[in-house]
């Protein structure tokens, strides 16, 4: 019992200790002219899908859940968002070359179709971000239309 107690105290101290690791938050209220919504005429339904299911990680502004303040959650999220934005940032979509936009559209299509995106670990806590078949269809239709016009 004594050993257990010591282990418990050590773990507790570690947990408290990592709370002091600082992380930068991904927040900005500037609407860039290169934003996907500014670049193209996006139907409202599709805009809502992008904003609720994609923008938290793939833009410069994340709406954080309360538990983000707890480590190591913040650290994990920070690295996820950094990676996601490097891959695709909807705020900067308009600055991408036509070729890159095409590639990104095609990748979005297949990632959504295969259920790879939005990430399961994200929709687990954000039920509203999960895409219904209807939403998938709407997204797919719009992107296909964009691909034809590009």
């Amino acid at each position, binding site marked *: 019992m004594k050993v257990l107690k010591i282990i418990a105290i050590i*773990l*507790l101290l*570690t947990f408290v200790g990592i709370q002091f690791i600082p992380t930068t938050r991904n927040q900005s209220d500037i609407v860039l002219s290169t934003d996907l919504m500014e670049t193209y005429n996006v139907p409202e339904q599709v805009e809502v899908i992008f904003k609720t299911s994609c923008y938290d990680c793939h833009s410069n502004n994340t709406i954080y859940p309360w538990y983000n303040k707890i480590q190591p959650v913040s650290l*994990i999220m920070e690295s996820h968002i950094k990676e996601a934005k490097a891959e695709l940032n909807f705020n900067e979509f308009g600055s991408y*070359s036509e070729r890159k936009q095409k*590639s990104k559209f095609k990748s979005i299509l297949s990632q959504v179709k295969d259920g790879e995106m939005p990430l399961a670990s994200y929709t687990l806590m954000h039920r509203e971000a999960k895409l219904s078949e209807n939403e998938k269809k709407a997204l797919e239709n719009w992107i296909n239309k964009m691909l034809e016009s590009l």
Partner: protein
Amino acid sequence: MKKFKIAMGMVAIALTLLTVMSCKDTKKSDEHMEMDQNEMNHDGDENMDMDQNGMQNDEMMNRDQKTSKATAVLNSYLELKNALVADNTEVAATAGKTLLADLAKFDQSSIAGAQKQEVIDIIEDAREHAEHISENSGKLDHQREHFELLSNDVKDLIAITGTDRVLYKTFCPMYNEGKGGIWLSETKEIKNPYFGSKMMKCGEIQEEIK
């Protein structure tokens, strides 16, 4: 006793969180190890390829200087294509890595005017696809998706730089749910990189690029 219970509860939370984190780390280092191994296995073939192409290259030099620009890119692209034909996801990942390095080294200084921006765009796009292919060993479908986009990039690139060898632009009408996809091949014989052994002969030559 109640206090102890609370403490244990917190420990449980801490443990879970720590496990989540350490899981992530282990996965990463595993991937690295896999990659290193691939690299080792592969060094041999790569050198052989290089020698062959070195010879080809010398012949080409006299004919047209710009043709040598895309040589390294074409070598690794075709290596990647053949790995996908063989359904070999690991070799495809290694070839993707080589291609990524070759694209980074691509010299675009002598390309002038309007074509310059296009080449810059092509290289940037192709690098992303090569990167995805190199990082997704084990996900053949995902690698093939990026290979399709990459094939378009390489096709457009050699339309500007020229090619040092005869290539066949081949079209598979069945890929991508009937939308079809093209690839570049060094042989007339059809060997499909999108379906591999499942549909090796699917495809038709659309164009001979010289």
